[in-house]
């Protein structure tokens, strides 16, 4: 417990994280990237990633976080094509109409072997037609705003191009040497400023990468780790969105906003697909971990979980063993099974409602609850609770001979199956020699 003052401090912290963060975030997103916000270097004056004052972009914070964090929101953009910022004014359509070929400006594209190669033209390439500006002679008037959109005072560029490398393996030279032309992958008709929209989509790649014309191995294009699994996040920028299955290539594994609650069916039917991105530790973090998923067990879950368990909203057993984890905790705080006490029958804080259980002849409301969802019983009760009434009088733990079986149980295939697999189950209630011990 904490004092009210400390609680208020936390409320203030929450407000700071949410509302303060909101304003910071929006400002950060509207303005150009900090990496180039005050760059004195015009866009595209060199090779390699464009960044802060000519340096490569700084690697961003890698966020491990709790599971709540890991499943939480990430930044905008695509995991394959991170969000770009291109504060330029340019019309591809008009340049193509003049008869310019692609390689007139993108002269290194046909021989590029890596996605890290910067293939947008340098400013000097524009000077051939638009006049000397990169660098600009002293007597030449500044015409920065002809192409640049972020200009102050007529000659100060306040934001440069930010174009993080795609999270892909790609070799332009390999493709052009096999007869691919630029327009096979980049549709530049009716395009003004080029953007990620003109980069090939997975669908267009798969027209050739179909397993026959070219390989359809995921790792051929998507980077993989040492263990062969796809790298679902950029290693130098974990804040970028993760590579998640989406749309027609997802095999039904689209990681939508309800995926955490609903992934069990997919995992059962196609676990191999899950394993192509997730390792064992990823599964166990949730399914047997001290890292409780914040969204799944939010707020006062200690109080609320009983309702979830009865409603079977989730499968508690997928993470918790009921006869140890659940029963141990319930027993510790006083809810566990006990002969008498506050929570027992007649107790001041009786857990179960009236008419729940009693001697033979009394109403037995618990029976229906057990039939509907016995998981809720098992989380507090061990076998001995059932034996107290349901065992026969001659059993090793004598009961009251209240049979839980229906009338035709002894003739059923279910009886054969249960008795045929393990006699322990039968002998907990029936004594050796009991005629009811055998199926008919």
């Amino acid at each position, binding site marked *: 417990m904490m004092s009210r003052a400390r609680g208020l401090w936390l409320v203030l912290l929450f407000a700071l994280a949410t509302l303060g963060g909101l304003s910071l975030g929006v400002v950060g997103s509207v303005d150009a990237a900090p990496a180039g916000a005050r760059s004195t270097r015009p866009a595209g004056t060199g090779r390699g990633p464009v960044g802060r004052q000519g340096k490569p972009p700084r690697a961003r*914070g890698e966020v491990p976080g709790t599971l709540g964090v890991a499943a939480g929101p990430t930044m905008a953009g695509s995991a394959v094509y991170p969000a770009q910022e291109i504060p330029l004014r340019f019309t591809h359509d008009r340049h193509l109409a003049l008869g310019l070929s692609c390689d007139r400006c993108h002269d290194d594209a046909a021989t590029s072997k890596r996605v890290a190669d910067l293939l947008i033209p340098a400013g000097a390439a524009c000077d051939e037609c638009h006049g000397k500006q990169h660098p600009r002679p002293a007597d030449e008037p500044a015409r920065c705003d002809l192409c640049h959109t972020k200009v102050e005072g007529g000659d100060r560029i306040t934001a440069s191009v930010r174009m993080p490398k795609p999270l892909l393996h790609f070799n332009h030279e390999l493709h052009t040497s096999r007869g691919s032309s630029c327009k096979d992958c980049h549709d530049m008709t009716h395009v003004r400023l080029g953007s990620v929209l003109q980069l090939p989509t997975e669908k267009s790649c798969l027209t050739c990468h179909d397993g026959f014309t070219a390989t359809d191995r995921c790792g051929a294009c998507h980077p993989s780790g040492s263990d062969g699994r796809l790298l679902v996040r950029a290693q130098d920028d974990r804040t970028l969105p993760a590579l998640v299955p989406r749309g027609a290539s997802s095999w039904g594994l689209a990681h939508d906003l*309800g995926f955490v609650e609903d992934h069990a069916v997919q995992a059962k039917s196609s676990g191999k697909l899950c394993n192509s991105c997730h390792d064992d530790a990823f599964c166990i973090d949730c399914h047997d971990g001290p890292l409780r998923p914040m969204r799944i067990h939010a707020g006062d879950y200690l*109080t609320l979980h009983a309702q979830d368990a009865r409603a079977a*909203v989730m499968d508690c057993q997928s993470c918790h063993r009921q006869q140890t984890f659940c029963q141990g905790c319930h027993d510790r705080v006083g809810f566990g099974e006990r002969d008498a006490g506050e929570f027992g029958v007649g107790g001041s804080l009786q857990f179960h409602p009236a008419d729940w259980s009693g001697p033979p002849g009394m109403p037995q409301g618990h029976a229906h609850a057990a039939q509907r969802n016995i998981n809720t019983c098992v989380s507090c009760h061990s076998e001995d609770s059932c034996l107290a009434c349901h065992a026969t009088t001659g059993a090793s733990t004598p009961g009251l001979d209240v049979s839980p079986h229906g009338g035709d149980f002894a003739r*059923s295939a279910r009886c054969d*199956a249960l008795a045929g697999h393990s006699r322990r189950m039968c002998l907990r209630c029936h004594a050796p020699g009991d005629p009811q011990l055998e199926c008919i």
Partner: protein
Amino acid sequence: MLVAFAVGIFATSADAADVRTVSRTIGEGYMVRAPGPDATLLSRRRLVQYVGVGVYRILPPKQPDELVRAEEDGQLQIVSSLRIRHDFGTFTRRATGDAARLINQNDGRQIDLLFGYLEGENLGGVVDLRAGRQFEMSGLDFYAFDGGWIRVRTPAHLAVEAFGGFAVDASDLFGFPTFEPDGTADESTDRVTSPMVGAAFAMADVKFMDARFAYRRSWSPAAFGEDLIGPDGSRGLPAAIDQEFVTATASLRIADGKVSPAFAARYNLGTSRLDDTSAMLSWAMTEMHTVRAQYIRTIPAFDLDSIFNVFALEPIEDVRLVYEVRPGPYWTLYGRFQGRIFRNDTTAELETEPDAKTRFGGGGAGGASYRRRRFAARADLFGMGGEGGERIGGDLDTRTHIVYDRLALDGRFYAVGYRDDLVKARRGYSVAMQAGGNLRVAHGVYLNVVGEQLFTRFYKSAFRAFAMLSVDWAVRGGRR
């Protein structure tokens, strides 16, 4: 040990190998109020240490100009994860009797070996294998075992699998408590070693379909029944079958992937029931719109030593529907429905009739996520009713990256009001607020801190703190 052994074995043949070590230290502290007139407060002070070691790309490249061995040439790797955990609070320290015994299995116990195995992939172009502590999450349930698994792919797009070993026992020094079969309380007779075998046929390298048919059986040794008198009057029971399942799973990709049906079914030979069936249809209508429908039917099942199998009679049926749309680059919206059907069996022996033969539970949720370059948020509203009770609430989850994205601030808010359908006194509300930060301390070293303030009908205020230090390093060693 496994890692050291494997490194020793393969070091002579490997020119290079990637070694990854992951260490996570997690601390958590909060109080639990034990219900009752005394309202005793119990402290939880958990400390958990994970250590994971992996050695990858053990086999050298086949071709002299290769940096790493080609996938089609096969590869070996070793992965492992150990966990040590302990609760220093009064929750475990002052527990007595059964509670102490059960709690200590989870929070006051030994080292958990979560997994640790040598894995071979595509050896000889046809064989995949694993040897060591491993687990499977599939249509066959969650289970862990110490043993081996092998898969041989045939040219007929069919793979044959065989696996066997010993089911993991929670009470072992290197046990794994969660994955031990459920159904019997942790008794001394529970501490037995159960052999397990299985086999499967699966489709392999088929582009439009993934399907698997599998069988698994495990045994309860005689030691488990030593306290009972057998049918012949002698003390002790012979070994019995503890679990026996057959499963069929299939996943398809049709209409160029726009429609993806999936199916999984498990037949429990021990209870003579189809006790876990699920089907799903996912439809990617456009790049922006997706729909997913699911049907799940389960009958609670336990290991076959447990009498709980006798009482688990009726299936729980669950229907789910999710629709998601991405109207723009920043927004994602979704709606979700979940409905469940519970059944009561009206047998004369019960001395009571249920109020209804069928009971329902269900509800819906809707929400949106919004992402900009440095800020992201997700908000949800939800409501449910029927079996279990009523609940309505919402949440807001935000993250903001600052300081060149070395630091991220998290803010979360959860609120819910509830009313139990069984006991009228169990009703109330809960409001929780969390603030936290994720800091990248250095390359591969991260610190995550979260504080939560909680207000409920039962707590004027409660505080919970969580911190995690994570170190994730990978090195490539060897001559290349």
